């Protein structure tokens, strides 16, 4: 399984970095205010929004190449979670398209979600 590439600094993300953690729950509400709740997902999954600014052309190309290598959101990869310090397997890009912006020489930017999946 491929591993998400780091920038030239070694980091995989920049501040601010939003992330979410959760598990889908179905809630059926009754007229008297009570409810019935159950999981519709086997376990909790994490998601990270990776916003990268002021990238060199080489760094931006590296992200583009990795996205192409994974065939967008088709193939899973390992993501080194910078918050927990653990490498999370079975992650995918959150969308089938990747937008990269070349705003100047060695001043590129991109933003995308990485999502944890069952594999």
């Amino acid at each position, binding site marked *: 399984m491929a591993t998400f590439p780091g920038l030239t600094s070694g980091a995989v993300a920049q501040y*601010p970095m*939003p992330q979410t*953690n*959760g*598990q889908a*729950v179905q809630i059926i509400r009754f007229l008297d205010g009570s409810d019935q709740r*159950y999981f519709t997902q086997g376990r*909790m999954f994490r*998601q990270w929004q990776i916003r990268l600014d002021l990238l060199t052309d080489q760094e931006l190309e590296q992200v583009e190449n990795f996205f192409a290598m994974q065939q967008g959101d088709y193939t899973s990869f390992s993501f080194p979670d910078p*918050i927990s310090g653990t490498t999370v397997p079975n992650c995918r890009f959150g969308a089938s398209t990747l937008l990269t912006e070349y705003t100047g020489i060695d001043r590129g930017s991109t933003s995308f979600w990485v999502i944890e999946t069952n594999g």
Partner: protein
Amino acid sequence: MFLSVDSGYSRRLWTLSYIDLSLPDIQALESHFAGCGGPLRAFTFIDPTDNMLLWSSDLSQPVWQNPSASITVHGGAADPFGGLNAFTITNNGESTEALTQTLNVPSNFHYCFSIYLANLEETSATLIRSGSSTTQTVSGRVSQSWARLISAGRLNDSGTEFAVGLRLSPGQQLTAFGPQLEAQPAPSPYRATAQDSGVYPNSHWAVEQLPIAATAPDLFSTTFTIETTD
């Protein structure tokens, strides 16, 4: 805070925002979210803007306990805000007695109990904070002028009950108004309560995903919603 009410029950939603949290703070929130299974399991939510005590406006209600029944409570006394909403509390017994209220909340949170007290003659009054196995008392002077006595701190007690109240010596009489309990170090302005208080035992996370943003090294922010139903 948003409040929506349906016929027969009420549903309250709190949107809570935090900035500049440390890693242990954010891990505590994540741990609680995971422990609840997100919105699946209920937990007790303490409204940080409200008084945790029931019937703070009526000390004669049964929720205020005096097991020996030797304490009498009479309303209609002049209160510190110009009304007639204070209560005269008298211990008619021959031993020290307490008028207390017990809540089903953790004993070891940091709580602040406050109450306005006055008496025609200068005397002392004792406030009680009790967990399942530990009790702390604070005594203060009471005179003709209204004074807000405060008892705050954290008990070294892993119990799931917490009681606060007023201890009176034999024959002692006090005029009391505005008891308030808050899960914070110091008191905020008094809020009168009746049959509803700021403790909600049937609360759920109202979000399936807990959003967290790392904004700087060891600094995090988050915003989420909690819902309670009666």
